[in-house]
């Protein structure tokens, strides 16, 4: 479908309120006023004007003809019936008296109900409920059929930052309805339909934009020692020596020297263990130690040969050091040591107090939930895009689970006393004029 062109979509000169979270749109919405001059025009002009203004918001990307086919003059509404009232009365009290109900009694009854607080399931406090029934704003439901569209529902569920973007999600195959990919943005949701949008797309649409690639600072290369090396005594020393004397900083000769020294130290240490604990060692472990010494010797020889390449030597040394570390302890000892270390690290992480540790853990958890990840198409850690709060509302006819970016279309939007569920920025009379335009009878 060819879409309408987007020139002056968020213009300031001839403002139109749109279905987007744009800051220009917010300003235009703020400036939206009820113009008095319109009432001096003809009825046709008024209707035309109201239709143009409301249609610029409600599904402006949908062709007029399509919307005309969707338009329905029957508007849905619902009434909250109190079961307590229904149980106490059979309805005859409304027909008693002079045929139009005993007004006085009914009003009294309602007031008494309000006082008791038996009603009030509608989410409002019983005391605030008006004694006289207020009108049902049917005309605000003019564009209700559009809210059934899949792209509109995605926008209303706060999964996209504009209706057009929601439409694009469908077309690009990022939306599922009841677990089946749905590529039609014009699919009309049935009550009970569940729609899911790709998590990454939602995060991109609603999150801050990623700065351009050349502006992002390259993360500093961290020279973190391996955890195994930290725990070691003798073997770790050799490893540290390797690390500290740092191959990348020194020239090759120095690197060779350092590697030789480290291998020497590993060899010495292994020999020392064998000689000192000759009787305690099992044959199997002794054999392993000897194999390690052999490996270290061969590595030593390779390094000493001046023409052989140095690549991979540091890896070999690290492996040997780790092996030595493991061999040094019997399996039971290793387990016990690991446990003790874990306990020690839990007891005081960097010497923090109880409260500080709690805060530290919270921070760690927050970082785990919202990590810095340059591979994502949005700025990380994720933050909502600017001016989102002014547009963040979820209508009652949807049940949304934000964690999995899924929602259920519970029912069609309805009007009830004093409330209409179709989110429209326009006042009652403007929607009424638009309704009359589409009625083609006024």
């Amino acid at each position, binding site marked *: 479908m060819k879409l309408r062109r987007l020139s002056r979509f968020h213009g300031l000169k001839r403002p139109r309120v749109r279905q987007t979270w744009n800051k220009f749109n917010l300003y235009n919405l703020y400036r939206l006023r009820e113009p008095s001059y319109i009432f001096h025009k003809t009825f046709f002009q008024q209707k035309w004007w109201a239709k143009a203004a409301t249609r610029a918001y409600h599904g402006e990307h949908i062709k007029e003809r399509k919307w005309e086919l969707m338009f329905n003059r029957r508007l849905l509404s619902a009434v909250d019936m109190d079961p307590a009232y229904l*149980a106490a009365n059979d309805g005859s009290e409304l027909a008693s008296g002079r045929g139009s109900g005993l007004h006085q009694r009914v009003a009294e009854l309602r007031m008494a109900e309000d006082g008791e607080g038996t009603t009030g399931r509608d*989410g409002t406090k019983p005391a605030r409920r008006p004694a006289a029934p207020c009108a049902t704003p049917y005309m605000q439901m003019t564009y209700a059929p559009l809210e059934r569209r899949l792209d509109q529902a995605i926008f209303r569920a706060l999964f996209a930052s504009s209706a057009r973007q929601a439409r694009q999600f469908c077309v690009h195959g990022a939306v599922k309805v009841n677990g089946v990919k749905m590529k039609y943005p014009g699919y009309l949701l049935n009550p009970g339909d569940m729609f899911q949008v790709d998590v990454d797309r939602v995060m991109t649409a609603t999150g801050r934009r990623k700065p351009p690639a050349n502006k992002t600072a390259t993360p500093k290369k961290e020279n973190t020692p391996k955890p195994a090396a930290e725990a070691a005594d003798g073997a770790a020393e050799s490893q540290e020596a390797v690390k500290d004397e740092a191959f990348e900083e020194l020239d090759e000769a120095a690197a060779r020297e350092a590697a030789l020294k480290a291998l020497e130290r590993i060899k010495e240490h292994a020999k020392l263990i064998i000689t000192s604990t000759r009787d305690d060692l099992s044959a199997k472990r002794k054999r392993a130690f000897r194999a390690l010494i052999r490996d270290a010797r061969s590595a030593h020889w390779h390094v000493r040969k001046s023409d052989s390449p140095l690549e991979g030597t540091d890896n070999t040394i690290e492996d040997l050091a780790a092996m030595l570390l493991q061999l040094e302890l019997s399996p039971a000892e290793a387990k016990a040591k690991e446990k003790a270390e874990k306990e020690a690290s839990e007891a005081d992480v960097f010497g923090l107090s109880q409260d500080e540790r709690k805060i530290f853990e919270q921070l760690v958890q927050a970082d785990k939930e919202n990590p810095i990840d340059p591979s994502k198409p949005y700025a990380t850690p994720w933050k909502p895009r600017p001016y989102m709060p002014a547009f963040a509302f979820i209508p009652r006819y949807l049940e949304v689970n934000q*964690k999995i970016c899924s929602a259920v279309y519970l029912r069609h939007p309805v009007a009830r006393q004093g409330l209409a569920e179709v989110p429209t*920025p326009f006042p009652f009379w403007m929607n009424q004029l638009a309704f009359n335009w589409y009625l083609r009878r006024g």
Partner: protein
Amino acid sequence: MPPRIRSSQALLLNGCSSPLLSSFTPSHTVAAAAGAAQTTRQCPPSQHTQTSYFSTTAPLELTRLRRDFETWLRTQGKRYRDPTPGEPCRYLGNTKQFSPKGKVFPLNPEFISQPVLSESAREKIWRSVMVDAQPLKAVSAKYSVDMRRVAAVLRLKAIEKQWEQEGKQMALPYAKSVLEMVPVNHLTPERPHEPINDIHVHGYTMQQIFLPTSESREFTRADAAKAFGEHILPVDQKMRIPELLAFEKDLVKGEERRTAEENFYEATTKSERDIADRELIKSQLEEKRKLRVDTDRFEFRFEQISVDKAGRKGRSRSAVGWRYGVPYNDRRRGVVKIPTSVE
């Protein structure tokens, strides 16, 4: 036709080479204009005159509209830029003069941003149905949450738990921040969530009927329904949770509250069980109609089909299979191909 006079900016750069011309774009700010003057300075001095250092045209500034917009963003608009934890409903319509907090649009008081279920509320609902095994209707009545919403919460929660188990990436920061922006309901007994006894207003009941009856007659809701149309049901029969009406009737009869509650719980449990039984019987009947033949490679399923189902024209919706001489219309131009429902 006389030649069109070019703008002074273009004249200003007349002497420069073309790449410079292309790099210059009419700017809206004074600073940018100054920058443009600097670019002209890079031109070879031999071709230059003194005029290149200034221009007679006034520098283009922001339009008044644009200026106002930016001022607004800096002053009043600042409030709407970022969410503040613990302060939901940052809407344009949410001003101090207006009492309901969730008014989103300044001109539309009829649309209110109503609270949504919080994470804890959803967990509460899930727990009471899946762990405590309470009937759906009872949970709905207890928390005053629409039955359809309760079912939807369970459905979504099941997927969420599955994702959690699979270790799939979830939109956690997004969820947290959205629930900070919109009003939420934690489902406490003092704060009911939504009306659960909604009755759809039937079109037939919106007319005014003059119906003469005798004064001595008790004209009840059932009579009124009949007056609107033969098939119109009275409200009592349209309740979403009819057990709730029975519960209130028990109370009116003078039953003790505790007993009435027990009766209600029993009735809702029974209705749920009945529905499950009915579904089971239905599926069993369906299975009976089928004949399964299991070969080592496939399982063939045979079903009795009536040919008459195709109808006189062979296009009946309930008909099965393709019939000779009846072409499909699904590739024709102008036919809507969007599915109407997804199972």
